[in-house]
C-alpha cells in the first residue's frame, strides 16, 4: 500500500439474502481509488456499482475481502466508530440530492457541521461562503423547492464539501440534470472537490461526463473488469 491510495478494495464480496434467496452482488472486487483523482465507476444497471460505493462508504458491510479506506481497515471499525469516521472523512452527493425541504440552501449545506456539533450561526455562515464560491450567493436563503435541479445539486455538493472530507462519494450526480447543467456540475465537482489530499469517486451511467475522469473503473457482473487512466492525475504528476 502507498500513500497515494485513498481506497483499496481487495477481493471484496457482498451478498444479500440467505439460503435459497442468496444473491451475490459483488464477486471479488479489486479497486484502488487514488488521492488527487476523480475516479468514475461505470457499468450497466445491476452490475453492483451502488453496492460497491455503499460498502466503500461504510453504509454496508462487505461479506468478504479486505477494504481499506483512508488508511483504516473498515472491517475492524466498530459500528459506532464507522459513523464518526463517515461524518469526519466522507462527503456524499446523491442522485436525488436528498436535501431537507424545510431547510434553506445554506442550512442544508451546513448539516455536516451541525452534525459535528458546530453552532448553527457559525455553520450556516460558513455554508453561505461556500455556496457563494459555487455561484449560489443569491440563493442561500432559498429552500430546495425554490431551486432548479442544477442549483440543488450544487447545494448538495456544498454539503459534501463543507467539512473538508478526504473522500467524496457521488452517486449518479448528473443523471437527473440536462446535459448543460450536468456538465456545469461536473466542472464544479472537478474544480472544487479534487485536491491532492482528497479522492473523489463517482458512480455514473452518463458517458458525457467521462471527460472529467482521471480514471475510469469498468464494472460488470459484480467485478471490476478494467481500469482506464484517462489523463495525468494530480497524484501522477506529483
Amino acid at each position, binding site marked *: 500500500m502507498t500513500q497515494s491510495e485513498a481506497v483499496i478494495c481487495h477481493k471484496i464480496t457482498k451478498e444479500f439474502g440467505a439460503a435459497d434467496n442468496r444473491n451475490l452482488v459483488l464477486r471479488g472486487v479489486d479497486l484502488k481509488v487514488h488521492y488527487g483523482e476523480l475516479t468514475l465507476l461505470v457499468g450497466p444497471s445491476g452490475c453492483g456499482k451502488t453496492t460497491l460505493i455503499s460498502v466503500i462508504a461504510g453504509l454496508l458491510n462487505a461479506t468478504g475481502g479486505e477494504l481499506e479506506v483512508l488508511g483504516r481497515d473498515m472491517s475492524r471499525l466498530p459500528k*459506532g466508530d464507522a459513523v*464518526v469516521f463517515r461524518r469526519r472523512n466522507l462527503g*456524499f452527493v446523491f442522485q*436525488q440530492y*436528498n436535501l*431537507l425541504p*424545510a431547510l434553506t440552501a445554506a*442550512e442544508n449545506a451546513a448539516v455536516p457541521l451541525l*452534525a459535528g456539533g458546530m453552532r448553527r450561526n457559525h455553520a450556516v455562515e460558513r455554508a453561505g461562503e461556500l455556496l457563494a464560491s459555487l455561484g449560489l450567493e443569491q440563493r442561500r436563503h432559498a429552500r430546495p423547492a425554490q431551486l432548479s435541479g442544477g442549483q440543488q445539486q450544487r447545494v448538495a455538493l456544498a454539503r459534501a464539501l463543507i467539512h473538508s472530507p478526504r473522500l467524496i462519494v457521488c452517486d449518479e450526480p448528473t443523471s437527473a440534470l440536462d446535459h448543460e447543467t450536468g456538465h456545469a456540475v461536473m466542472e464544479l465537482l472537478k474544480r472544487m472537490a479534487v485536491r491532492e489530499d482528497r479522492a473523489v469517486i463517482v458512480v455514473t451511467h452518463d458517458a458525457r461526463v467521462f471527460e472529467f475522469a482521471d480514471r475510469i473503473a469498468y464494472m460488470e457482473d459484480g467485478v471490476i473488469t478494467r481500469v482506464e487512466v484517462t489523463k495525468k492525475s494530480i497524484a501522477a504528476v506529483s
Partner: protein
Amino acid sequence: MNFVALQMLLGDRAKYIGLVMAVAFSTFLMSHQSSIFSGVMNRTRSQIQDVQDASIWVMDPKTQYFDEVKALNDNVLYRVRGVPGVEWAVPMYKGLPTARAINGDFRTVLLMSVDDNSLAGAPRRLLAGDIADLRQPDSVLMDRAAYSFFFPNQPLSTGKAFEMNDHRVKVVGIFESSAPFTNFPVFYARYSNAIRYQGRERNMMSFVLVKAHPGLSDEEVCRRIRASTGLTARTDLDFGWQTIDYYIAHTGIPINFGITIAIALLVGTLVAGQTFYIFTLENLKQFGALKAIGVTNWRIMGMILLQALLVAAVGYSIGITMTAAFFEITKNNIDLRGFFLPWQIATGTAVAVLIIIVLASAMSIRRVLVLEPAIVFRG
C-alpha cells in the same frame, strides 16, 4: 441538530397542524370528561360539604350513601349526646317535598334542616337575607337555583311566598349551594318546620350532626359513638367519600365516562401515531441521508423525540386551554356550576399526553433506527 429536527417538523405545516390538533382534541376530551366526571362525583357529597358547623355524621348502620337514609328514632339523639367527647349533637332532617310557585310551577326539592335553637347546619354562602330569620314562622332559605326557577328573571330579594307540600312558606334568605347530584333546588328550614312541611311520620330524623370536644379528634369521637350506640358515625370527609364510592360502584357513570376517556386516549394515540409515522415515512430518505452523513442513531432518536415533545407541548397547551376556557365560560351557569378543571386532572392529562406521544413516536423511532443508510443510493 435540534434546529434541523424542528425545521423538519415545522416545515410540513399540514402534518404539524394535524399532529397538534390530534393531541389538542385528545387532551381536551380527556381533561374535560375527567373534570366533568370528577365534578359529578363531587356533587354527590355537596350537601355534606355544605354543612360547616358539625364534622361528624351519625346514621343508621346500614346507610350506604347520603341520598338513601333510614330515619332514626328521636331517642338516638339523646344517646349520642351522652357519649363522652360529644360537645353538642343536633338532629337533621333531609327530605324531598314538592314546592310550588304562585304561578303553578312546581318541582321536587331537597329540603335540609338546621337545628331549631342554634341553627347549626345552616348554609354559609348567603346572597340575601339573614340566617337568623329562620326563627320566623313558616320560613325557609332557598338556593340561587331554586330562586331562578320559582322567581325567574327577578332580582334576589326575600319575603316572597310559595307552597311546600301545601304549606305556605316564606323565603327569608337566598344562598349559594354546592350543586346537588340530582340537580334539585335546595332548601333549608328549622328542624321542626322541615318535618311539618314534609308531614309527620313515626321517625323523621335522618342524621345526627355532632361536634367533638375541643382536643378530641373526630375519628376518636366517631369510634366512641359507634361503640356506645351501635350506630355508624363518620367524619364528613369519610361520609363524602363513602357516598362517592357508592356511586362509582353502583352506577354506570364511571364506566361511561371511562369509555369516553379511553377512546380519547386511544384515538389520540392512533391519530397522532399514524400521522407521526406517515411524517417519518415521508422523511425517510432525509433521515437516511442524515445517517449516511454520519448522524448517529442516538442523535436521530433525540431529533424524533424532540419533534414529538414539541407536538405534545403545543397540543397539550391548546387542549388544556380549551378545557379551562370551557369551565371559565360556564362557571356562572346554574346547571354547570361547580365543575372546574382540578390541577390533578391537568397533571394526569399531561402524563397521558406524554404516553400518547411516546407511543406515537415509538413506531417512527423504530422505523428510522432500522433504516439502512444505503437507501440513499437507491434512486
